[in-house]
């Protein structure tokens, strides 16, 4: 269905693509955001049906920046295979779905990645009872994997490089591929380590029965992406993400941002829109960043609310000032 949409979109007259995404979003009154079909901590509806996760928070931040209201988002749950077509065809305005930034995707798929909201790497999970200690012992294993992912390619590369053989079982839906793994159809489930931690914490019948092997076999910088060729929208989404990081660095949070107007720090004054006009330069309200922090929170708040309860460590995703590699360019 998504593919048909793409066909229709590319077959339709060229001017349809000419309208800027920011204008289109403004006139329809909400941001259409492509998210995961359900990955705890990244994007998953909670018990009340409200979408939650760090990927969801990026969408909410953009809505807060554009509309001053983080609730003006509609979500389109997408499988790994549907995601790029959905963005290309204009079905979603942002793809915020734990997607790895690679050169092929940046150039060949007509996307632009706006940045990284989670630095990740690919790992392996095995049932504890198999008594496997290292990925090097996985020769001959049957491995469950989702199609259309960098995971599928890294997996083949890793086994080729280490001269081992494996049998992939490739199933599109996360639920189905997990069922196959938990039923013992596969010896191993592989995806990004964040996905393994999330799945083990939220889906495994007994989390302790599964171990994540120490090897991390790839770099997986996960981030939101927009369509190529709309720089205005690209800027809005990119700086919405950076504003969350910058707020953490400035120690501004949803709790204290109301008091920030009395701050003497000129950088804080610029950030909340009390001085300067960075908001206007983005084509937004000058209080865009204030609204993001007030309604969504800074990066640390988003991380602590969504990922920490599942047992995630900040690790690489700490700010650069605290030994991590999260770094936002200056907002000035």
């Amino acid at each position: 269905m998504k593919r048909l949409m793409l066909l229709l979109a590319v077959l339709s007259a060229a001017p349809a693509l000419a309208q800027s995404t920011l204008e289109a979003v403004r006139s329809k009154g909400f941001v259409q955001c492509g998210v995961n079909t359900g990955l705890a901590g990244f994007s998953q509806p909670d018990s009340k049906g409200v979408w939650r996760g760090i990927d969801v928070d990026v969408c909410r931040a953009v809505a807060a920046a554009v509309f001053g209201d983080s609730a003006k988002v509609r979500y389109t749950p997408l499988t790994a295979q549907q995601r790029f077509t959905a963005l290309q065809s204009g079905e979603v305005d942002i793809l915020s779905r734990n997607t790895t930034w690679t050169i092929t995707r940046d150039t060949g798929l007509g996307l632009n990645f706006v940045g990284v909201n989670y630095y990740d790497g690919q790992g392996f999970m095995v049932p504890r009872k198999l008594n496997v200690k290292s990925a090097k012992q996985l020769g001959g294993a049957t491995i469950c994997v989702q199609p259309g992912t960098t995971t599928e390619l890294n997996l083949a590369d890793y086994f080729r490089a280490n001269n081992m053989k494996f049998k992939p079982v490739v199933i599109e839906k996360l639920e189905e591929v997990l069922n196959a793994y938990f039923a013992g159809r596969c010896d191993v489930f592989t995806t990004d380590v964040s996905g393994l931690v999330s799945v083990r914490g939220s889906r495994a019948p007994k989390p302790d029965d599964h171990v994540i092997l120490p090897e991390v076999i790839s770099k997986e910088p996960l981030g939101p992406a927009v369509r190529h060729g709309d720089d205005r929208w690209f800027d809005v989404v990119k700086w919405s993400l950076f504003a969350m990081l910058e707020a953490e660095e400035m120690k501004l949070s949803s709790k204290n941002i109301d008091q920030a107007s009395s701050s003497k720090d000129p950088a804080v004054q610029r950030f909340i829109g009390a001085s300067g006009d960075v908001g206007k330069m983005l084509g937004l309200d000058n209080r865009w960043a204030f609204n993001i922090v007030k309604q969504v929170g800074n990066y640390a708040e988003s991380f602590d609310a969504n990922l920490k309860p599942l047992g995630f460590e900040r690790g690489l995703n700490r700010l650069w000032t605290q030994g991590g590699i999260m770094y936002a360019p200056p907002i000035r």
Partner: protein
Amino acid sequence: MAANYGWGRRIAYQAAALLAAVALGWFLARNTAANLEASRIASGFGFLAREAGFEIGESAFLRYSASDTYLDALAVGLANTLAVSLIGIALATVLGAAIGLGRLSRNFLLRSLGAAYVEFLRNVPLLVQLFFWYAVIAEGLPHPREALEPLPGVFLSNRGIFFPTFSSSPALEGFNFAGGAALTPEFAALLIGLATYTAAFIAEIVRAGVLAIERGQWEAAYAIGLTRRQALAHVALPQALRVIVPPATSQFLNLTKNSSLAVAIGYPDLVSVANTTINQTGQAIEGIAIIMAVYLTISLSISALMNWYNARVMRR
């Protein structure tokens, strides 16, 4: 009014319609190319010669590894589609004919079992049935280390059915069985699902074909001393085939196209491999064009074969 149209006018209308269709096609193709270019999406079939880089779980007939090209990967997908379709068609035909004739039997039990089979199988969506069979195999059977051995050398586990060949027999090695030949759970679930589902429709077609024979034909057959079985084999069925073959052809085509539901349970058929290819290369239009062209070719081939067979049946 139509009768008043002259010869020249008819030609003119048809030429205009043809011209409009060609112009529309040309416009769409040009527009698509321009839009793809504008949004920087790669196009063309050059990607087929590039290294695929992903593994495929099983391959009927062909050898494949991640260092082969996308074209090789698609060929493996096609071979897998053909394998499950052809075996599925054979099984569905045999099973369907048996059930169809069973429903015509004078034995009450046989007749009702046939009716129950047809009503149950054809009224549950195929996708649900595929999930059912897959769950039965993947969740119902034990791990390879506790595999069942119903016959010497034949092992049943959630990794599939392993059986010996002339040259080697399966043995547990590391994570799984090695040696011998194997039916994977994905292939087995898809084959069972497709064959049993389609058999329900074929059973009805066979029953209809036999019932379409005039009573006079049966009476004539009995009158020359044939038993019921002989009358069925030599008088009724040859005539029934004329009624059976055309709708059965549709069912064969359906089975082949339904095999694309393989995606849901992880059997690497053409659609599954093409989907992965599309996603890795981003070239959806080319990928979809390949899928459509291949299914069209398969379907037209089956149609041609069945039409030829039907023509032969009609001549008798």
